[in-house]
């Protein structure tokens, strides 16, 4: 690992001042489970590390709309009664991230800022219409998570910005969500493909459909073609099967030891269909 100067601001304003002072020579560090590995591989070589551990951003709050402080650890979130009650799918997805040791250190702000396309938390948040709250010396802004990821490990974040909160809006009445992680090797592995799906019903037709995938391209992705094909349609097995097939055109997986690109594309179709079926079944809907 390269040498660097570590600074530890006591508050968000001080952290923003440090970002301005050191510019793109600096990196923010929260849990460090992602960044330290990138630094060990010399893929990232910051001259300054800005430690976030003293920033007061660990609060998990909200009734209906959940506000998750950027420094809330994944373990705090999976164990949070608020998260479990309001968006159980998010708690279930987070429980599947790596191991308890990593979840103890890793944070929700890190999980989105790191922008690893294969992690579990981003697609789960995408399917729940999450937003990211961002601070900079220029002010505050919110970005919908589906506008946040721009490329492989890249986001819309500017060098003077930091994530303060991840916001999960109140979910549509009667909606149901499922996260499926295809793990053909070990349980602590990255997904071969992962799917988060949310559905609701309105007047006997599907509504508020969200389908998001991890490990299926250079960013976590939303499969809008699948969502659009199902909206206002009857919840039949045939409709789900035909819509799921459309995900083939939305994904762009790479071949690696977890499977060939072609295999992953086929598994994306299978797991999108299963996730939709399970979300509807879990909400008590019969599939014709």
């Amino acid at each position, binding site marked *: 690992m390269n040498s660097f100067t*570590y600074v*530890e601001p006591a508050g968000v304003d001080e952290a923003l001042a440090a970002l301005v002072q050191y510019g793109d020579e600096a990196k923010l560090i929260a849990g*460090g*489970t992602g960044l*330290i590995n990138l630094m060990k591989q010399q893929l990232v070589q910051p001259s300054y590390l800005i430690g976030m551990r003293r920033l007061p951003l660990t609060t998990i709050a909200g009734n209906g709309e959940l506000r998750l402080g950027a420094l809330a650890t994944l373990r705090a979130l999976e164990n949070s009664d608020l998260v479990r009650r309001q968006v159980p799918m998010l708690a279930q997805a987070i429980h599947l991230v790596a191991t*308890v040791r*990593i979840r*103890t*250190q890793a944070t929700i702000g890190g999980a989105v800022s790191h922008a690893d396309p294969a992690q579990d938390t981003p697609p789960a948040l995408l399917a729940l219409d999450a937003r990211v709250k961002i601070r900079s010396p220029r002010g505050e802004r919110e970005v919908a998570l589906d506008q946040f990821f721009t490329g492989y490990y890249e986001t819309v974040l500017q060098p003077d910005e930091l994530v303060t909160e991840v916001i999960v809006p109140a979910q549509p009445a009667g909606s149901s969500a499922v996260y499926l992680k295809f793990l053909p090797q070990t349980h*602590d592995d990255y997904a071969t493909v992962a799917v988060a799906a949310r559905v609701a019903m309105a007047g006997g037709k599907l509504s508020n459909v969200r389908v998001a995938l991890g490990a299926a391209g250079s960013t976590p992705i939303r499969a809008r073609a699948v969502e659009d094909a199902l909206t206002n349609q009857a919840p039949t097995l045939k409709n789900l099967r035909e819509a799921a097939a459309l995900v083939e055109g939305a994904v762009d997986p790479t071949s690696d030891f977890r499977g060939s690109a072609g295999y992953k594309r086929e598994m994306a179709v299978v797991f999108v269909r299963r996730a939709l079926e399970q979300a509807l079944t879990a909400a008590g809907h019969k599939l014709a």
Partner: protein
Amino acid sequence: MKKITPRVNGQAQSREVPDNRLLIDFLRYDLGLTGTKEGCSVGVCGACTVLLNGQPVSSCLTLAVTADGAEITTIEGLARGDKLDPLQQAFIDYGGFQCGICTPGQIMAAKALLNSNPHPSKEEIQDWMMGNLCRCTGYYKIIESIQAAAEGKVRV
């Protein structure tokens, strides 16, 4: 260089460390606590597990500067004089280790589990311990050892 003052195994420590010192290197090289082992160096294998403020972390992914002011417990901090921790005794009585390289990490992870959940089910033990690899593949005995310690079956 930064001065850090953590408490390690109940003892106050004060050391100057380079900003990029990893916690595992601080423990092993600066404090001579070589019980904590380094395996994969990327946070996967669990050999380097220590407790930071009571919580299990990978010391290979943790900067020593972020442990300033923290309470750190390593495998050396479990025994009280000649009296082993029940988990240590259980690993001996129930054959919870073979070559031994993963054992400090296994025991520290198990310690964190029993601290937060004193009577875990077998499934809860398996789920929690998934992040601690044993290349001798002695997992059954490790699980039995933790169950025995949790059930108060070992005498120390």
